[in-house]
């Protein structure tokens, strides 16, 4: 039989012989330092765990870039085909609301970054929660403004579909523009809602004194997500709101 092969061909790894297979599932404390309570069993140490988590979030953000990328590509192509129609349609978006929301999101990114920093320097839970709460408040403000805008579009028959009504010269490209507008801002808004959900959990954890200089990965990773959603808006704002700036009827 073949059972003896491993004796004939010494393996490339060094591994102490298994006393019994039971050993394999026993916790093994072969390091002098006590483990951090937040260290998951399958990581060797906290550094590995931190690196894995941040890399994981970055990789996820890359998929998010591609996810929004499909919509941006559609925008690019149709705007290339209908520059006039898109400018005309964009003219009917409210630049003021868009600009206000841009500022709101940028401030929320600042508070988010400061929330991460407060965890990094082991600030008291109250400070951490305050920054996180401020971020959430700004996020909710953004969604509120968005809701006003959506309602406005709804009352002006600018929602694509059978009720879409356009007085201008380019009804078809305008409906295309508003299809893209709702898809892009809608997807972004969904990301904001998810972000608020994440921040709720993070805020709760901060309240429970989870984070300090030794362990703040969840805040940091949630922050990466929040900043990403901000970046998407940084592009959406000019591409959707500002291309009709000097449009003449």
């Amino acid at each position, binding site marked *: 039989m073949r059972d003896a092969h491993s004796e004939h061909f010494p393996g490339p790894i060094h591994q*102490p012989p298994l006393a019994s297979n039971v050993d394999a599932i026993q916790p093994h404390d072969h390091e002098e330092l006590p483990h951090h309570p937040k260290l998951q069993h399958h990581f060797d140490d906290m550094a590995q765990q931190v690196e894995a988590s941040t890399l994981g979030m970055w990789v996820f953000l890359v998929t998010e870039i591609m996810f929004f990328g*499909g919509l941006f*590509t559609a925008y690019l192509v149709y705007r290339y085909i209908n520059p006039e129609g898109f400018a005309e349609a964009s003219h009917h978006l409210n630049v003021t609301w868009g600009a206000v929301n841009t500022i709101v999101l940028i401030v929320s990114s600042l508070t988010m970054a400061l929330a991460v920093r407060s965890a990094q320097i082991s600030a008291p839970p109250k400070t951490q929660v305050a920054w996180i709460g401020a971020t959430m408040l700004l996020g909710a403000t953004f969604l509120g403004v968005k809701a006003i805008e959506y309602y406005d579009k709804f009352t002006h028959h600018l929602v694509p*579909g059978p009720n879409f009504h356009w007085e201008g010269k380019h009804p078809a490209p305008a409906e295309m523009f508003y299809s893209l507008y709702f898809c892009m801002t809608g997807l972004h808004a969904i990301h904001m809602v998810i972000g608020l959900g994440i921040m709720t959990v993070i805020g709760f954890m901060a309240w429970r004194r989870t984070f300090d200089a030794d362990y703040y990965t969840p805040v940091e990773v949630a922050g990466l997500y929040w900043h990403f959603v901000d970046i998407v808006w940084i592009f959406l704002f000019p591409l959707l709101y500002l291309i009709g700036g000097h449009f003449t009827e």
Partner: protein
Amino acid sequence: METLNYLNNGHGLKSWLLTKDHKRIALLYLVSITVFFVIGGFFAMLVRLELLTPAGDLLTSETYNKMFTMHGVVMVFFFLIPSIPAVLGNFLIPIMVGAKDLAFPRINLLSWYIYVLGGVFTLVAALGGGVDTGWTFYTPYSTAAANGHVITAALGVFITGFSSILTGLNFIVTIHRMRAPGLTWFRLPLFVWSHYATSLIMILGTPVIAITVLLVAAERGLHLGIFDPALGGDPILFQHLFWFYSHPAVYIMILPAMGVVSEIVQAFTRKNIFGYSFVAFSSLAIAIIGFLVWGHHLFVSGQSVYSGMIFSFLSFCVAIPSAIKVFNWTATIFKGSVCLDSPMLYAFGFIGLFTIGGLTGLFLAAMGLDIHVHDTYFVVAHFHYIMVGGAIMGYLGGLHYWWPKISGRRYSEPWAKFSALLVFTGFNLTFFPQFIAGYLGMPRRYHAYPPEFQVLNVASTLGASILTVGYVIPLIYFAYSLFAGEKSVNDPWGARGLEWEIPSPPPTENFTVSPVVTEGTHQYVHPNQEVGLA
């Protein structure tokens, strides 16, 4: 005495459904993709039975269209894409990199639940009356004209996409951050390299199809008009976005199979791979160049000629790394110690069929020739040579190779050899005639066809019956081996690699102590080799 391993460490449904052990999750995937394989196979059999006669007499046209649509959707999204990565990759990658688990065990479990949820959506669509868009969901048919539950099916694909993304994410982080000390990139098994390349496609491509099918669902359900020609929408834009993922998706299916074959060829020649770095980098090259060739699906769609030329050129380029792999496998066998056990038979089958499948792909990359064969049975034959002759052969080969590790049991080798032979014969009889039918001009997705194509179609259906038998037999002997199979030792094949150094089946945390690696994991010959130092 029963030693404790991942299988008997915890009993009951809950210990499986809430497990975070990558090996148990791999088995959850194994069971679920097998279910979908059977469903997809059932649809395929109905398609083949209908095509026995030129007239559309067994099913109505609408039913036939739903059958090939559901066959495609189920096989592509619910069997082929998760097959090797989610089952074998999930089971083996942590072990091969010397880790206790994947980087994110909970996300791994989540990805299985997402997969199941997507599957439920698809099954609801199938049972609730089906969908007849074709697996490609081309607009404006899918948005404006199709019958059945397009939105439900599209959401099924959308949801299951995230399962694929999370699996890829987990693999990438694991391979980057969880490797055992000393296990450098160029000591990694080629299986890991090919899964790394696969994961890149999963995370970079899948989101694009996710948003694309979501837009189709939104256009059908909410009347948003992203692809609507009446609003100036371009159906070709849909095709661009669809194939931006769906062409690389073919490499999601074939790259892991290439990794499996690289492992099997080394194990059954007891020889390290010929040209390790070429084989490793060709995986990355396929993944990256594979992202640049999607436009060869659009040669007759009205795409710009210049785009077509560039895509044609790049499509030929992606053939080169594939050729490198085939030549290197062949060279590995040279002066090996060749043993033709069932995994090796599947690997041989893979190399031969993939060669034909790859070369016939060149026919489709040549623009002038593609005009004729595009959307005919030639294409159907070509991609089945890659997906069935390639990916499924690789999957079955890998399953046979690692079955003793996964289950701790040996299966019946004579039966395995017999079924490998059946699969090979049945496969060729099914799909080779389709090349001829395709060049004759038989279009794909035809419910009824002119009578002069009948001989070829009868041969094809006959082959499909043999193929079915070839697929059912392993199901039986694998199941039988679980209860009555001979117990396997750690390393039943005399193979190299970390997975063969630990017990069969492995303990829950794989390694008692994190292994320390001092050289490539697949070295068979060490004249005066010092055993590594920790």
